[in-house]
């Protein structure tokens, strides 16, 4: 706790949160048990201004900050019977309420669309089936099968594919290695992949 910072004038008996926790706990319990307005006012007067400081930092906007304060303190009032003094301090409980409300407020504000879909994320591995029982595992194309098909490619196409996909060379490097035009590398790559695709289809 920092020393020497001027404390809020309203609270002549201001103390560290740990020290006032018991007091606030007791008020909250009273609110929960008997809707005691005076006790709630005590809780409110302590927490609302501090909540506002937090809310201003989080929301960066006075109107939203006050909305957060109001919603949080409404929840404290309405749900005080759920506060369990044995489980934790009022500051913890009220913070978690504020955090959750803030999160929902931000979510509502945001209208950004993130168009990530499974095909983007798991591009190769996905094969949609309507019914999981319809297709047996034996019918799957495996990497081993791909390897077998690969061996059936014409030598010139295979060399290019090997250099690009297994040795990791660029198309330009492959052109230089085999002393062929870049266009030829591109067309051989395309033809090879088309061929593989057809072989995979026939294989089905």
């Amino acid at each position, binding site marked *: 706790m920092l020393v020497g910072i001027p404390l809020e004038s309203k609270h002549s008996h*201001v103390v560290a949160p740990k020290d006032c926790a018991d007091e606030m706990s007791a008020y909250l319990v009273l609110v929960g048990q008997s809707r005691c307005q005076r006790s709630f006012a005590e809780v409110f007067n*302590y927490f609302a201004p501090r*909540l506002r*400081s937090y809310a201003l930092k989080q929301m960066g906007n006075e109107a939203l900050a006050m909305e957060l304060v109001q919603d949080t*303190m409404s929840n404290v009032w309405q749900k005080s019977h759920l506060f369990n003094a044995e489980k934790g301090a009022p500051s*913890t409980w009220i913070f978690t309420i504020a955090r959750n409300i803030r999160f929902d407020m931000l979510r509502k504000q945001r209208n950004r669309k*993130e168009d990530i879909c499974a095909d983007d994320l798991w591009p190769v591995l996905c094969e949609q*089936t309507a019914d*999981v029982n319809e297709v047996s595992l034996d019918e799957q194309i495996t990497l081993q099968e791909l390897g077998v098909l690969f061996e059936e490619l014409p030598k010139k196409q295979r060399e290019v594919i090997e250099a690009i996909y297994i040795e990791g060379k660029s198309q330009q490097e492959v052109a230089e290695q085999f002393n062929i035009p870049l266009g030829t590398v591109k067309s051989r790559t395309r033809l090879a992949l088309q061929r593989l695709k057809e072989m995979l289809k026939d294989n089905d």
Partner: protein
Amino acid sequence: MINFHPDLVHLRAFAQGTCPTNLALMVSAHVDMCPRCQALVMQAQEEIGSEVFSASSDVIDTPPDYNDMLQQIMQSPAFEVPEVKAISNILELDGKRFELPRALARYSEKTGNWSRLVGKLWQAPVDLGQEGQANFIYMEKGGKVPEHTHKGTEFTLVIDGQFSDGLADYDCGDFTIMDSTNKHMPFSEADEGCLVFTMVDKPLYFTSGLARLLNPFSQLFFK
């Protein structure tokens, strides 16, 4: 036994409510399964609450008139108690039943169809709305994901069973974050296989042998 946990930074951000939503979902599911991280999150909440509401925390000048707000709050009608609907937390695949952690329970019914993948792998997508998509991945015994690295970040939580990836062995509840600095090949040798919940923000990048063929032209092969 859980050996892999979220970073303390992530746990704290989770407690603060400031970590990205998709990560928060993963952390939340891990916390459901991990007493250690439950305790750490509770401790972090206590610390943050105490900082936010410390007696000396700066109370910004020109405070608004709180009295109206106070009166309004106390006079407003009682909240309606929302009906609590019990939701099943059982995810099914091919006769197998998996119990999901609380944070993921609501996806047990929202999960798309299971799809077959390469090898002995199964995948079911989970639509997270604005947060994009996650997947349940089930590796049968002997199932293998070709070696890959990551263009973005890959979060994985083990829901059931065990798997290994050449870097370590992972057990139920383990939580990992992989990025472009990690190259791995997940596989499961567990008799019951392994169910994981996973999210990637960019495609995987296959690194070994013929699997590299799958990278740029994948759409040609697996339509």
